[in-house]
């Protein structure tokens, strides 16, 4: 159970930085909400997964691609213009060597698959599904995530998934809202009860960050820079309303993304990501995990 979560966390961290350009970083882990504003939970227990919205998952764990139409697989355009396509992906974690994955990205969403996990975001729904199993692949679990979006214009450059607008993400126990604009991202999550942060067994805490219950996170662009991430290119600062000095500085410039966080969580430290012109991307996360991906 330790391998895949850290793989997904690493990859989602990179995706989030590349795609959204912002997260706050107070004690809880920052402004939640991965790429495209996915959040939420709804644990449906083990087995094949039932209920929920119109997720079109057509493969089991370890399947080839997931729900996202493979529209960009050919990778016809340069990665500085469009990251759509199917990517071979590696991530490292201590003591476990390399974990392999496949990432499929298009304007219709994305899926990220390893041998025992799959996270899918369907932008058409919109909805998201998180399937994972234990270390021995014995207990598959499916979590369906409800997503509502009121779109707003925000040019994400080469990142094909729409992320601008107002988002509401809901699960059995948590509700998160997120507003994404070209120069400002705000987010807030509330949890029923007195939980310290968003988590528990109906939240994919090992995939997405766990923001603190009730805090408001703000990520502000302080100046714009030329970047393949469109409007999101620039220097950003992230904070929460907790009054804590913890913060993150984020820079999206040209083909690189860097974050530097002073936080009491996994985001403390520096993250670097570079997307090469040959469609090979790689970087290092604050925990020391490394990731590399190459578009087929």
């Amino acid at each position, binding site marked *: 159970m330790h391998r895949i979560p850290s793989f997904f966390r690493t990859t989602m961290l990179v995706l989030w930085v590349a795609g959204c350009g912002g997260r706050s970083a107070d004690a809880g882990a920052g402004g939640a909400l991965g790429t495209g504003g996915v959040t939420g939970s709804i644990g449906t227990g083990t087995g094949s997964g039932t209920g929920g919205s119109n997720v079109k998952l057509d493969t089991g764990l370890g399947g080839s691609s997931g729900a996202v139409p493979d529209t960009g697989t050919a990778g016809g355009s340069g990665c500085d213009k469009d990251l759509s396509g199917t990517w071979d992906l590696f991530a490292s974690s201590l003591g476990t060597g390399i974990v392999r994955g496949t990432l499929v990205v298009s304007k219709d969403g994305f899926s990220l698959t390893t041998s025992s996990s799959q996270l899918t975001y369907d932008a058409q729904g919109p909805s998201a599904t998180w399937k994972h199993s234990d270390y021995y692949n014995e207990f598959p679990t499916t979590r369906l995530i409800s997503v509502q979006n009121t779109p707003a214009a925000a040019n994400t450059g080469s990142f094909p998934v729409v992320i601008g607008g107002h988002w509401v993400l809901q699960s059995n126990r948590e509700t998160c809202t997120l507003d994404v604009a070209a120069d400002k991202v705000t987010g807030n999550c509330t949890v029923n009860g007195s939980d310290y942060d968003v988590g528990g067994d109906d939240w994919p805490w090992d995939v997405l960050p766990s923001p603190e219950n009730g805090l408001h996170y703000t990520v502000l662009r302080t100046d714009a820079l030329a970047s393949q991430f469109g409007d999101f290119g620039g220097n950003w600062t992230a904070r929460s309303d907790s009054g804590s000095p913890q913060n993150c500085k984020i820079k999206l410039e040209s083909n690189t993304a860097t974050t530097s966080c002073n936080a009491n969580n996994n985001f403390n430290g520096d993250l670097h990501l570079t997307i090469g012109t040959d469609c*090979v991307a790689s970087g290092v996360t604050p925990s020391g995990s490394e990731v590399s991906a190459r578009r087929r």
Partner: protein
Amino acid sequence: MSARRGWRWLVVLGCLLLAIRPSAYGRTPQALKLEIATGQKPVSRERTTPSVAMLVLNAMPEARRQLLADSLAKLAAAVDKKKNPLFVSLDDGEERSVVHELIAQTMPAFSAAASLAAGSWPSREGDVQVRAVYRCAAKRQCVSLDGTPGNDEGERRARFLAWPLGYAVFLAVEGRAELDKVAEALRAPGSFQIGLVLTSAELHSLRASPALLPLQRNAKHLVKTMPKSRPPLLETLANLANAGTGKDRLAWLRLPPDTILVVPRLGALATSDQFVADVRSRLRAVGAKVEWLASPK
């Protein structure tokens, strides 16, 4: 045949043998290649083993081995202190910071070593398998690691899947003393690009050094005393403790004795031009005369 004529033939034969001797990687028909096979096969996970830990330790200069030994000693002291029934722990910050430091220190090298030691590299779906061979099987796509990469998509994907070789730099250095000097220069701290630097001998056996003994002794002690709730760290420590024992997992990789393999970090595959520039500048600094046998750029 007269004796004089016989000598002449012997000289010619000797010259021919010298010309084709496998003095450097990539010079002979037996040069290392990547063989690409298609068709579904089960994918196994790359494991960290004592062989992998041996590669990591061999890729460390002595000063770095000493640093790791010191970190392990600090961790051992923290763990022992906690085991004392008279000690009341208020927070485990000290232990956590040592662990964090250890992780940051070793993870890139462990990743590169584990992937290198695998010896074959399948895609996640198992539909493509790449392995290192000296002679490709008939009708299989074959990628030579000599020179710089080509533009063929199959080759480029194979190089990515088999990144510890496909994105590596291979150098030939003349003379044992020069070999060690060049390897040390390449291992100097400060690179965010270089993952492993290994001479051909270091692929197969543990290099002895003064720091090795306390390092492995502390690793062994920690395996015995640390709480079992940290399985990845414990596994890493056990592998460090047992490095140099067991089967040679790189028996398939036989490089000429004058060769140095420089593997990039996994997190630096997108910046292979910087990786090559880093290798080049370190070689320049030491004034080494080397031959570049293979390079990703």
